[in-house]
């Protein structure tokens, strides 16, 4: 089946810093989503982004389907951004390995 790898696996940022999270997938996909799992375990849908770029506040995402990757940008990070970020492909069937983000004061 399709493999979805995310990098980096762990990331520690100071509040206010910017970051880029990457999602690589092994086969072509026609949909991709980004989720944030907060420290309390709640999964929150961030973006549905099969291709192109979308922005929502301090977050934006870009998917280059032909090159099999997607990027999630977090600007001016806040402590509330802490948690695990997952990408998921194939209509949510396959989740990536996740990036654990910790934002410190």
């Amino acid at each position: 089946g399709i493999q979805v790898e995310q990098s980096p696996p762990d990331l520690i940022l100071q509040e206010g810093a910017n970051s880029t999270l990457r999602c690589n997938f092994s086969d072509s996909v026609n949909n991709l989503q980004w989720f944030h799992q907060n420290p309390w375990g709640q999964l929150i849908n961030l973006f549905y982004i099969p291709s192109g770029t979308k922005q929502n506040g301090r977050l934006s995402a870009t998917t280059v389907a032909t090159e099999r990757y997607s990027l999630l940008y977090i600007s001016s990070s806040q402590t509330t951004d802490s948690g695990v970020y997952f990408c998921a492909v194939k209509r949510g069937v396959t989740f990536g390995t996740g990036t654990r983000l910790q934002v410190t004061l």
Partner: protein
Amino acid sequence: EPEVTQTPSHQVTQMGQEVILRCVPISNHLYFYWYRQILGQKVEFLVSFYNNEISEKSEIFDDQFSVERPDGSNFTLKIRSTKLEDSAMYFCASSEESLGASGMFFGSGTQLSVL
């Protein structure tokens, strides 16, 4: 704001017992999903459900598992003869379209502990 509701939040059961996890999806959503997450690991897809039938299932979703939409609002996951390795957080999700632009919304999960 509409939300997906799951009950119970915690379930403790003895190995070999049957459990039913319940979910109330967002009312105008048509697609429903179950996932599980073993502590510290990634989210694993179990099954998707549309139009009163399973549309896709993973290798994890074997004969031990079943799903049902017993009425117009509830969506259940039944695990027969639970095993120790079934201990995990189980998430229900729903979407208006087949993971279209409207996205997927998750409940808060049921933490299942099999003793």
